[in-house]
């Protein structure tokens, strides 16, 4: 683990980029996969939510970077060791930071992210209802005073 971090931390970016380009290993490799299909499915599920630390916007499940391969193997090792899904994710987050989570945890300032949509929905519905009320959504149901008087007149006859 330590050796791995040092390996890419010391690596000049252009060499790193070259390595990424020059090794067309495509995502999950057959030799990484676990024999137990249930564990393997869980590992895939987890790795689809974790961002490759050196690429942009790619999950470690899709990424070709060597670091992603290492992370995929670590997740599988944790699962084999008996970790739950949450424990395996926590293990990765503890070492690489919460920035690797593609689904940010709804804690602290991230609540803004999660609640922005529902909040705007409430505002939208509120504004729509209020402006509907203000306009008087069904004014044709009510008659003006003059019309009331006229109606009364007609009914009296």
């Amino acid at each position, binding site marked *: 683990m330590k050796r791995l971090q040092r390996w890419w931390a010391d690596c000049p970016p252009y060499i790193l980029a070259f390595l990424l380009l020059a090794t067309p290993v495509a995502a999950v490799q057959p030799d990484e996969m676990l024999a137990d299909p249930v564990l393997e499915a869980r590992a895939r599920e987890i790795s689809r939510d974790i961002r490759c630390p050196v690429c942009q916007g790619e999950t470690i499940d899709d990424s070709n970077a060597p670091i992603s391969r290492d992370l995929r193997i670590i997740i599988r090792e944790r699962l084999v060791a008996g970790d739950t899904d949450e424990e395996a994710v926590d293990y990765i987050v503890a070492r690489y930071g919460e920035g690797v*989570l593609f689904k940010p945890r709804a804690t602290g300032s991230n609540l803004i992210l999660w609640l922005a*949509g529902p909040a705007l*929905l409430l505002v*939208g519905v509120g504004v729509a209802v209020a402006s509907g009320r203000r306009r008087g959504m069904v004014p044709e149901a009510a008659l003006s005073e003059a019309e009331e008087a006229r109606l009364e007149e007609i009914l009296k006859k």
Partner: protein
Amino acid sequence: MIVELGHFALILALMVALVQATLPLWGAQRGDARLMALAEPAALMQAVLVAASFGALTWAFVVSDFSLIVVVNNSHTLKPMLYKVAGVWGNHEGSLLLWVLILAVYGAAVALFGQGLPTRLKARVLAVQGLIGVAFLAFLLWTSNPFWRVDVPPMNGQDLNPLLQDPGLAFHPPFLYLGYVGLSMAFSFAVAALIEGRVDAAWGRWVRPWTLAAWIFLTIGIALGSWWAYYELGWGGFWFWDPVENASFMPWLLAAALLHSSIVVEKRESLKAWTILLAILAFGFSLIGTFIVRSGVITSVHAFANDPERGVFILMILGFFTGGALVLFAARAGVMEAKGVFAMVSRETALVANNILLTVAAFVVFVGTIWPLVAELALGRAVSVGEPFFNAAFTPFMVGLATILPVGAMLAWKRGALGRTLRGLLPALALALALGALAFAMQTGRSALGPVGLMLGAWVVLGALTDLWARTGREGIGARLARLSRLPRADWGRVLAHGGLGITIFAVAAMLSWKVEDIRVVQLGETYPLGRYEVRLDEVHEVEGPNYVSTMGRMTVMRNGAVVAVLSPEKRVYPVAAMPTTEAAIDYGFLRDIYLVLGDRQASGGWAVRSYIEPFANWLWGGAIIMALGGVLSLTDRRYRVAAGARRGAVGVPAE
């Protein structure tokens, strides 16, 4: 020489755009007919000049003029002609020139086809359009000039990114830009209406076709991009919630909202202020999209800091137009009095709900896209937002939209009867529920996503068919069938677009939940099972392409021993760009695609192979095409074809 002429034409276009943006506006304010009349020839002239400039750049790419920096960086003599031409917009400078060209062409289209527009409104619309032109031409000339030369031209170029050398992607940017920039028309009309201080049914009728056209182009552009990602990136994904994808999706959602709310303006003279606001927001999000894609700010804050000039310029354009229009809106929105009133249960209310859901959905995408940036800059917190977030936060609004859609589309204007509408939809509802239950019973141990998607998709499609049938009246079958063929194209358009959406919803859910995946090492000649099929790796050999070297496999797909397809997945290396790509081999089918990807040769012998069965993949693009087709039918409705002549007498009526 041709390149210099192109450069000169671009500078001249900026001068013309300056005239177009100022004098007609001044003329409209003063009531000076001669100044207002300047708008038309200026718009035409600007389009001709930008087209000439674009032609010159295309010529430079076609003849591989390596004295131009953009050509050196994005082309190569060995590249096939299609990609030499596509290379014109396969880079920052050229794609912005295309942006400006489309902008100018839209302006010219108003000048040419807007004969029925009131002179004053037309002058103002063209002036606003010209002002956008000024901003982007200046941006192009000062920060992203495609006509810059190099001192010592190299012998050959550095090639276009191989991932982009693909027919699907060659036409993806032009369609997207036609959509993005098309929304500038709605914006120009909105700002002109705000200056004018009035909006009426005729205004709605003028804005809607432009919005509809922009939405059609965006639909096709997004579908093309998604299709490209599906077959080119090599793992069968079709949407990644990547910032650049989101940049095109937000305007699409808002354009969808706008084209629904402009119906209300057109038919009922209601929701005027909201429609204006939506028009401003839709184009604002197009600009945000341009900013996101062109500044690189989202992919990396540091990339932005290294080259802030372009990003800051676009941010200023964004701030000026969106901010300016919103200030104008705040000052004048009160003037837009609604004429039509409506009850709580009515088509209008349903369309308001549609608008709220689409806008909130766009907002969720927006917040999700910029949150990593905001969190890092303002809070110092490293956060990533990706597919799992959007699946959780975006999907509920789409589910809500699909649920109310069939009901809303059939409610009467002004005052609807919910009970009667629901009774008519009962067969569709029952069938959709039955289909969902059937799918749930047939699959074991999987998520409920597939069945729910099938149910929603079927509900929307069957609802659209019910809508169509209800439009034919209450007589005998014969009379109703006869009337079906005489329905206005707008009705067919609505039904097709809604049906296409239903199909797309179903396909997305099916692909996400019923995909079969297999990753393994396969020896030459070995056969392995894939779902109901067997696949055999026959051979692997080297093939030389025009500008790449390929490792090509031959694989036979069989079912019960009978050959279904022989496929050739490839791994390519483009030596000039030093970049490998995977070319998946796909057997397209009506109900499923078989998708094979060749990986690396293993040390132990054999090849890594990944195989997928993608259920209903073609329904996704099919649904998008049907949606776009619905838009085209709606666009060619009689009321738009005759509008140019017939509205002349009516447009002068003020809204108040």
